[in-house]
């Protein structure tokens, strides 16, 4: 990198190189095309400049082969761009199985982070190097956008639903975090830092903080406080569906459709319970809109997710942290259990226990 006048931002994630490669390809195509067009223009206007006042242009009106050629060739080049871009995008859209989950709430004008262990941060996010991190993004008010240029990732944070974004940092350091979607007066102040640490340091940081109990524990407490458990009981006698083992399953709805029980579904079911009614149940559940904050909903989601994985855990083998992608495909209900003990041995990120069933 040319330090005085950089043309690329720092590459600090696994996808950054791929994005830059695509960018470079497009850059080369663009430079070639621009030089070609500009060169031809300059050549033509000098060569064929008007010599006499009465001169007319030659009667060249078209050439079908040539025109077909410059229709088809750009189209082919563009298809390369499309496929290449789509493949990078696909990677960006699919978090690996063993990703460390962190919950993010954007509000005017700050970023709030909740780690699974209960650590909370504002405008600062600590993550370990070499470990995929999946962020679940929620907005408390308007649309924001979570943007870390060094990671080449960005995702809007939309009120009313969750979006996700993931990255795997490749080198320790401190990187810019920006809000990229205009969100009001202090939009440009909604910035922060992503601090990438060596795993050991990260562990030290995790244990050094003043954790208030894990997110699942907080979610469980809320679940009791809001009396959710009176209807959503462990047996099938409750007035609401059983939540154990729910997460990641496909749910049969009353209107004949099915839906996968993901974070968004759980969120919607808390706030708009009748929107996707499970078959066999009545729309009895009141809405919790306005009664719980976005952070609390995220805690409840974390708790229900932990219920969802208990069955999977029964069959799971020994914990194998840092298992690279290549795990079982998404959605087989073995999302990360978040009930790790507060103090973990070093090098074992607390929330990685997923394993093949």
């Amino acid at each position, binding site marked *: 990198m040319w330090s005085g006048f950089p043309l690329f931002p720092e590459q600090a994630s696994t996808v950054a190189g791929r994005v830059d490669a695509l960018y470079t390809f497009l850059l080369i195509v663009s430079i070639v095309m621009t030089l070609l067009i500009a060169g031809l223009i300059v050549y033509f206007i000098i060569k064929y400049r008007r010599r006499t006042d009465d001169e007319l242009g030659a009667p060249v009106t078209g050439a079908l082969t040539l025109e077909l050629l410059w229709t088809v060739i750009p189209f082919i080049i563009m298809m390369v761009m499309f496929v290449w871009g789509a493949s990078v995008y696909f990677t960006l*859209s*699919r978090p690996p199985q063993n990703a460390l989950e962190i919950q993010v709430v954007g509000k005017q004008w700050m970023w709030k982070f909740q780690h699974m262990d209960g650590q909370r941060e504002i405008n600062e996010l600590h993550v370990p190097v070499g470990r995929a991190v999946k962020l679940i993004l929620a907005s408390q008010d308007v649309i924001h956008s979570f943007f870390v240029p060094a990671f080449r990732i960005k995702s809007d944070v939309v009120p009313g639903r969750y979006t996700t974004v993931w990255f795997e940092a490749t080198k320790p350091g401190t990187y810019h975090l920006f809000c990229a979607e205009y969100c009001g007066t202090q939009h440009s102040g909604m910035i922060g830092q992503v601090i990438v640490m060596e795993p050991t340091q990260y562990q030290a940081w995790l244990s050094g903080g003043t954790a208030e109990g894990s997110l699942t524990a907080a979610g469980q407490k809320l679940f009791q406080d809001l009396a959710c458990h009176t209807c959503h009981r462990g047996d099938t006698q409750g007035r609401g569906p059983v939540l154990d083992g729910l997460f*990641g399953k*496909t749910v049969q709805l009353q209107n*004949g459709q099915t*839906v*996968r029980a*993901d974070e968004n579904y759980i969120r919607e079911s808390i706030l708009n319970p009748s929107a996707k009614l499970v078959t066999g149940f009545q729309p009895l559940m009141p809405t919790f809109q306005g009664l719980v904050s976005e952070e609390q909903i995220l805690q409840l989601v974390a708790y229900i997710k932990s219920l969802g994985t208990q069955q999977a855990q029964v069959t799971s083998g020994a914990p194998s942290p840092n298992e690279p992608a290549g795990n079982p*495909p*998404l*959605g*087989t209900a073995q999302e990360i259990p978040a009930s790790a003990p507060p103090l973990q041995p070093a090098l074992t990120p607390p929330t990685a226990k997923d394993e093949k069933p």
Partner: protein
Amino acid sequence: MSEKIVSTKVYIVIFIALLILTYVTYQIALIDLGWGNTIVALAIASSKALLVALYFMHVRYSSRLTWVVTAGGFFWLAIMIGFTLSDYLTRGWLTAAGGR
């Protein structure tokens, strides 16, 4: 003027057909067909709209250009609804596809 004059008989027939279709759509709405209700309701509404357009609005007797303009309007409406809907219908696909 070159505009074709449609006889009043045609108007009355269309008028009666429209009233009958209104009655039919109401009666069918009372029967539970699941999503079929919506489809039938829209089919009847579309045929009523078509009758109004073809006869009351004289599209049937109009130039090809009028046909194109009319069809174009509804085609663009279909683009708007269709593409927007495609987003909502496929939002869940990615995770589900991985899940198998």
